[in-house]
């Protein structure tokens, strides 16, 4: 009994001690979160009147007015900087419908647009904010802006999507024939990248420029990117735009073939997965400068969405290049990049004339920091560096098919172009797409101004694209944030050497321990 008491106490002391350490350390880790928990509850959603029209008006004035305007004319404050412009409910020219060309849309068409939004435009999907009842109420309200709805008598005829024909090589081939026969190429271009000969001169019902869809990016099709949606578009046309309805020239079969062909122009999965790390691929011998060299096929492809440079004046709210695809190769002393992006025209630099603003050559750029910061964490500001940390840019100019290098310390500061470039490469434009190669040796003479590459390290990398026809130049460019490019070192041979050594050593220790224990046991006997 005398031993019992202190032993219990000791046990409790050790357990409490452990508990105390646990609570203290956990608590200090959680404190940061705790400090941020006191948030006021949001105001309850507005009480809506029972009358649908009155409720719709309140919803409209909170959710829609900023783009579609006080009077529904599509002239809210957001209108000045969005391309395409918000719809005018006054004019009631709706593009995405199930009704024949030049007719009003059905309520379900409007409901679908409000519910799913219009991809690639400022119109979001409202389903998470507005329940079905509210969406129906606001649709009822927007129909008050145009007298066309009152003049409507009877129900609207709709285009029906007939018995589907599944996609196949044969169907796609027949679809291509329709594509050529119906003159789709005139606007959408030979490969459907929205680069046809008429691409730059089309106007909509407001006499604003309107651009044919790039059919290679079905995730940006406003009315849906699957074959059934395309079927609908070619049979309904887009009101207020030059896109006609081909209903009189297409039967169900031809409609499906055409839809299958157009669908086949985009990747099977639709929108590609966004790239993160650009892994460079090791090859033997010299790196290719030809964008079509088969060596590129072995490299991993990274799809990177772009945004307009809207942080510094002069800003670009409507870039035409929405994404860029990047591949990289390296050998013992060079690294190379293949850049592929779509552009609806090959721009030629031209001074401003009368109404037409100045045009520039199309350009693409790869941006690196001038130097890697120790630890690899710190970087120059992603939009062309900052006062403290500069960036090194490689530009390819389409009109001259030439590469120049520059250094920048902030987009508002003077960009300094280097006298000669160490970067070589070339590119070309075909069917609405640029393919450009740029490559350089790991090391250069000017170690202050040029990034010095090394295998096995992560280098920040970003991309810029400029569509000169869209007036893009200098601060007005499509950009990406920083990514990393990485050249994988060859596998270290020690990977195969040390683990077996460890296995043998640990086993030896085990045997040694066993021997000692045996010896001790014998001695104690």
């Amino acid at each position, binding site marked *: 009994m005398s*031993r019992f008491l202190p*032993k219990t106490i*000791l*046990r409790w002391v050790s357990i409490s*001690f*452990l508990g105390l350490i646990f609570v203290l350390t*956990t608590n200090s*880790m959680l404190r940061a*979160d705790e400090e*941020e928990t*006191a*948030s*006021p*509850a*949001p*105001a*309850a959603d507005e009480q809506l009147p029972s009358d649908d029209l009155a409720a719709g008006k309140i919803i409209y004035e909170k*959710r829609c007015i*900023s*783009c579609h305007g006080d009077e529904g004319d599509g002239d809210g*404050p957001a209108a000045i*900087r969005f391309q395409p412009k918000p719809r005018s409910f006054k004019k009631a020219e709706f593009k995405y419908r199930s009704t024949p060309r030049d007719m009003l849309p059905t309520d379900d068409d409007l409901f679908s647009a409000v519910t799913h939004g219009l991809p690639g435009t*400022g119109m*979001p999907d409202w389903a*998470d904010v507005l329940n079905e009842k509210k969406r129906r109420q606001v649709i009822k309200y927007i129909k008050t802006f145009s007298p066309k709805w009152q003049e409507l008598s009877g129900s609207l005829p709709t285009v029906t999507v007939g018995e589907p024909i599944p996609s196949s090589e044969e169907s796609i081939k027949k679809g291509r024939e329709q594509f050529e026969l119906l003159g789709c190429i005139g606007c959408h271009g030979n490969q459907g990248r929205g680069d046809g000969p008429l691409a730059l001169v089309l106007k909509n019902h407001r006499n604003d420029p309107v651009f044919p869809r790039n059919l290679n990016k079905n995730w940006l099709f406003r009315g849906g990117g699957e074959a059934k949606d395309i079927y609908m578009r070619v049979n309904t046309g887009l009101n207020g735009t030059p896109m006609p309805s081909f209903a009189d020239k297409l039967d169900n079969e031809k409609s499906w073939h055409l839809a299958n062909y157009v669908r086949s122009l985009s990747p099977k999965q639709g929108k590609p997965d966004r790239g993160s*790390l650009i892994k460079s691929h090791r090859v033997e011998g010299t790196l290719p400068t030809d964008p079509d060299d088969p060596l590129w096929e072995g490299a991993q492809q990274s799809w990177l*969405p*772009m*945004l*307009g440079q809207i*942080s510094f*004046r002069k800003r670009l*709210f409507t870039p035409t290049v929405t994404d860029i695809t990047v591949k990289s190769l390296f050998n013992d002393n060079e690294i190379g990049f293949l850049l592929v992006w779509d552009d609806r025209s090959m721009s030629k630099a031209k001074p401003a004339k009368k109404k037409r603003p100045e045009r520039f050559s199309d350009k693409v750029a790869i941006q690196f920091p001038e130097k890697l910061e120790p630890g*690899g*964490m710190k*970087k*120059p*500001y992603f939009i062309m560096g900052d006062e403290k940390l500069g960036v090194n840019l490689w530009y390819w100019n389409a009109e001259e098919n030439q590469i120049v290098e520059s250094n920048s310390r902030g987009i508002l500061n003077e960009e300094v172009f280097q006298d000669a470039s160490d970067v070589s490469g070339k590119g070309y434009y075909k069917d609405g797409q640029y393919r450009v190669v740029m490559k350089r040796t790991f090391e250069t003479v000017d170690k202050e101004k040029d990034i010095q590459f090394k295998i096995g390290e*992560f280098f920040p990398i970003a991309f810029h694209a400029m569509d000169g026809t869209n007036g893009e130049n200098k601060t007005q460019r499509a950009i990406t*944030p*920083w990514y*990393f490019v990485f050249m*994988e*070192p060859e*596998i*270290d041979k020690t*990977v195969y050497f040390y*683990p*077996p050594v*460890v*296995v*043998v050593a*640990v*086993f030896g220790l*085990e045997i040694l*321990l*066993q021997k000692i*224990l045996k010896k*001790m*046991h014998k001695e104690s006997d």
Partner: protein
Amino acid sequence: MRIPLIAKALGLEIGAYLLLKLGMPLITSPLPSSVIFMYMTLVTISIVLYVSIYEDDYNNFFVPIAAFIRGGKGESAARKLSRAAVFILIPLFFGFRSYQGIQINFEPPFPQRVIHPAPPGSAAGFMNPYGDDKNHREEYIQEGRKVFYENCVFCHGDKLDGKGFFAEALNVKPANFADATTISMLQESFVFWRVKTGGIGLPEESTPWDSAMPRWELILSEEERWKAIMFLYDYTGFKPRTWELGSDE
């Protein structure tokens, strides 16, 4: 029936691990493996201390283990087999760990980004000069709405949910004002500082080089910025965080 001490110790070790690995994420965010390792070391040390303080515990704990390692005459085949298994598996485990250790890590540097950093001294004490003017409140909010839809909507979105047109292209995602963990947790003064100096004005722990938030003082007037902030709070129904009454500061 008494549970053998070895089983108790083993149970405690495994139980502690499961609690840290699976139990903690239910209460808070998952613990980093280094923290789990630290706790497990403490648990192991405590168990070893516990079983080695008294001789009877010591005998109950270590003697069977020693006997197992040592082996002896007249053992069952199962016991021999399990000893062989332990003798082989332990070296293999260490061999595997060393292989993992040598292998090159292909993960790019990943910054632990602080989302709401402590603002610098220069960021304190911004007061909204339009906040108390009840008569013109609605007017100011409408002006703020205009500013938002001409400048901010492209990233922060029509629904103020941070899913604007350009958001997908960005790595540091635009703030979601409709979420209860953004503007409602922040003081107006802090929000004003973030709008004024933008991403580039953040301290280093918040990776200013990655933030696309413009330095709005270059583009918008002070008046426009305050009114835009008023619009954010009005649209979402949140209130800026304020120091509670009676507090020292």
